[in-house]
């Protein structure tokens, strides 16, 4: 594509939208008469415009019905009598006698609850030991079903559940995971099932359903190592949230699974989710796990049911094979596999015109509670200008004035103290993209569960002339806590090297220097 074509691509889009000015239109026609790729581009956009028109018209067709449903709902709620709990309560409390009766009833209920709790909360194991089961396993096999309680098929029936069959071979760093995606639109609900097979640095995604194809990806050695290290955290996350979550669990019942007496534990998280685990009453071994969500009717519905959980079972032959299954075509090859960038699964944000984008890359906690965070904030259209922003920044000094500057962190949930102020450690550059590496030091004592709930990244704009945008909370969770020089070299310097063009971490960053910096900051801000 020539430079000219770049200019005309905007005009082609405007032409399809119907707003291209006449002189521009003439110039475009001249260009199109000599440029086949631009003609193809125009054809593709026109085709897409036709598809979009049809797609939205399809949605628009049912508008009258939707509007009537809205009116009915409004009518219902307008005529419904207000009998909420507060008014009933107020009614009861009007009378002196009913006040006494209510107080007595509460006392009885409280006593019964105490007896029930007392009987069932003395198991022969500690629920907080649960993560260890995964850390010690050689292989982990989880089977179950995904349900879609919030959605229905066009005929009103339930969306059929989608099977889960996940294998993790911890010893050999291999895994096979089912991924389920649901889309819901004018033509109803669609469920896509794919699997990702990971064997060391090579990944293969298998798309089932109509597509029946495989796509290859590869990750760096560093990301592969990080993935292995995080395997038990990953599996724990699916089965019972995190350690903070399970520590709030209580026993809500008992049930036998495959002849084994199990306690049923339950906890609600802060985001409308409910977790349930079935643990052997004798050994604490996890036999089943569920994740539930509250649907519109207020009922709790099972969203995921891991009905079988087994450890140290030999996976069937071919489980981790990177060969396409029979009848599946490969859209690329292991040699042309797509490279997966390190971004810690955090994603990022960009402004509406995509001039600026920003986001975390990877974070680690240090034993003293401070955080090392790699992040980016750049103008992809002008990488060279950005290089100037890093001139003169020094180790331990203020952060560079990047377009969006993550100047501090604070706990993402609970009390918003302490504030973690950012200091510059180093920057790296790979293929024109800069990563800033900063140390965030808390000005007080961090809450105990802050690492599990993560940190909110506070930001400010540094370019007065740029169009600012706001974004929702951006949070980051450290991978784990670093407390030795060897770990720092492997993980923090490893991540810096990963995002350096020459594959090397900056020479002047060491664990000792970073720890000393944190100490120095704490001393200087101490009251």
């Amino acid at each position: 594509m020539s430079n000219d074509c770049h200019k005309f691509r905007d005009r082609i889009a405007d032409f399809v939208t119907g707003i291209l000015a006449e002189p521009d239109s003439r110039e475009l026609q001249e260009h199109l008469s000599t440029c086949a790729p631009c003609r193809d581009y125009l054809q593709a956009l026109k085709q897409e415009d036709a598809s979009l028109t049809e797609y939205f018209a399809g949605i628009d067709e049912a508008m009258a019905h939707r509007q009537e449903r809205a009116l009915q709902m409004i009518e219902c709620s307008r005529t419904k009598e207000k009998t909420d709990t507060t008014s009933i309560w107020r009614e009861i409390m009007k009378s002196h006698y009913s006040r006494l009766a209510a107080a007595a009833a509460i006392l009885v209920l409280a006593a019964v609850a105490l007896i029930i709790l007392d009987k069932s909360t003395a198991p022969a194991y500690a629920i907080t030991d649960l993560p260890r089961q995964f850390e010690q396993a050689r292989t982990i096999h989880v089977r179950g079903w995904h349900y879609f309680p919030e959605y229905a098929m066009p005929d009103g029936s339930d969306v059929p559940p989608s099977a889960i069959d996940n294998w993790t071979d911890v010893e050999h760093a291999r895994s096979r995971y089912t991924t389920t995606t649901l889309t819901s639109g004018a033509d109803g609900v669609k469920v896509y099932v794919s699997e990702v097979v990971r064997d060391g640095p090579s990944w293969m995604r298998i798309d089932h359903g109509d597509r029946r194809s495989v796509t290859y990806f590869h990750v760096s050695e560093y990301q592969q190592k990080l993935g292995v290290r995080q395997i038990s955290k990953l599996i724990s996350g699916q089965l019972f949230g995190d350690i903070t979550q399970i520590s709030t669990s209580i026993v809500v019942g008992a049930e036998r699974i495959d002849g084994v007496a199990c306690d049923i534990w339950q906890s609600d998280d802060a985001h409308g989710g409910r977790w349930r685990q079935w643990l052997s009453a004798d050994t604490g071994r996890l036999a089943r796990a569920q994740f539930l969500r509250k649907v519109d009717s207020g009922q709790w519905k099972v969203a995921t049911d891991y009905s079988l959980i087994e450890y140290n079972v030999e996976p069937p032959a071919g489980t981790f094979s990177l060969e396409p299954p029979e009848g599946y075509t490969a859209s690329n090859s292991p040699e042309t596999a797509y490279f997966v960038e390190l971004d810690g699964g955090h994603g990022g944000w960009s402004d509406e015109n995509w001039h600026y984008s920003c986001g975390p890359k990877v974070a680690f906690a240090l034993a003293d509670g401070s955080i090392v965070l790699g992040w980016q904030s750049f103008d992809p259209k002008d990488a060279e200008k950005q290089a100037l922003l890093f001139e003169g920044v020094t180790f331990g000094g203020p952060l560079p004035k990047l377009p969006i500057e993550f100047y501090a962190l604070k706990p993402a949930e609970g009390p918003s103290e302490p504030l973690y102020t950012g200091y510059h450690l180093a920057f790296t550059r790979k293929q024109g993209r800069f990563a800033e590496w900063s140390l965030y030091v808390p000005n007080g004592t961090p809450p105990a569960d802050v690492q599990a709930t993560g940190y909110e990244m506070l930001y400010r704009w540094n370019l007065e002339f740029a169009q600012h945008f706001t974004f929702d909370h951006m949070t980051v969770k450290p991978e784990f806590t670093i407390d030795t020089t060897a770990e720092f070299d492997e993980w923090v310097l490893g991540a810096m090297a990963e995002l350096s063009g020459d594959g090397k971490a900056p020479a002047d960053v060491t664990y000792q220097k970073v720890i000393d910096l944190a100490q120095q900051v704490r001393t200087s801000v101490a009251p």
Partner: protein
Amino acid sequence: MNDQADESVVRTCRGDDKAAYTILVRRHYRHVFALCLGMLANVHDAEDVAQETMLKGLLSLRKLAKPQQFESWILRIARNLCIDLLRRRKRIKVLPVEPEAVSVSKAQDNHDLEGAIARLPQELRLPLTLFYFEHRDARSIAKKLNISPSLAYERIRMARQTLHELLTEKGYP
């Protein structure tokens, strides 16, 4: 013109004639729904939030300081309810940590138009959706989004180009 018409209906509703609110629903439901669809990229969610918006509008009509601005007020309610839902949705998505989590909005089939629309950044998806619901009228879109018509066109252009990229890219695991 419409603003003045809204003003008198709002005043009637604020009296005892709650049934007059039907007029406002019929007049504005479509715009509210289109805004919700542009923000949420899901027809069912858009319908739910549009309903909730219209109900909330009725219940808080007394708080509307300038009755002639009913349209921008009701769209603001819709936008806020959408943001609430997106926050909740994001949390639901994040919870069961990784690859196996059910993601509702991420399209895996890149050749699927609906999936690609859902993957557009909201800032681009919203004007693009309104473009098709507002009969390709940039002024109307700009008014509803409180931006200039030229910016509305710029975003539609970017939405088209990005959508084309999404429809022709290879996808990620």
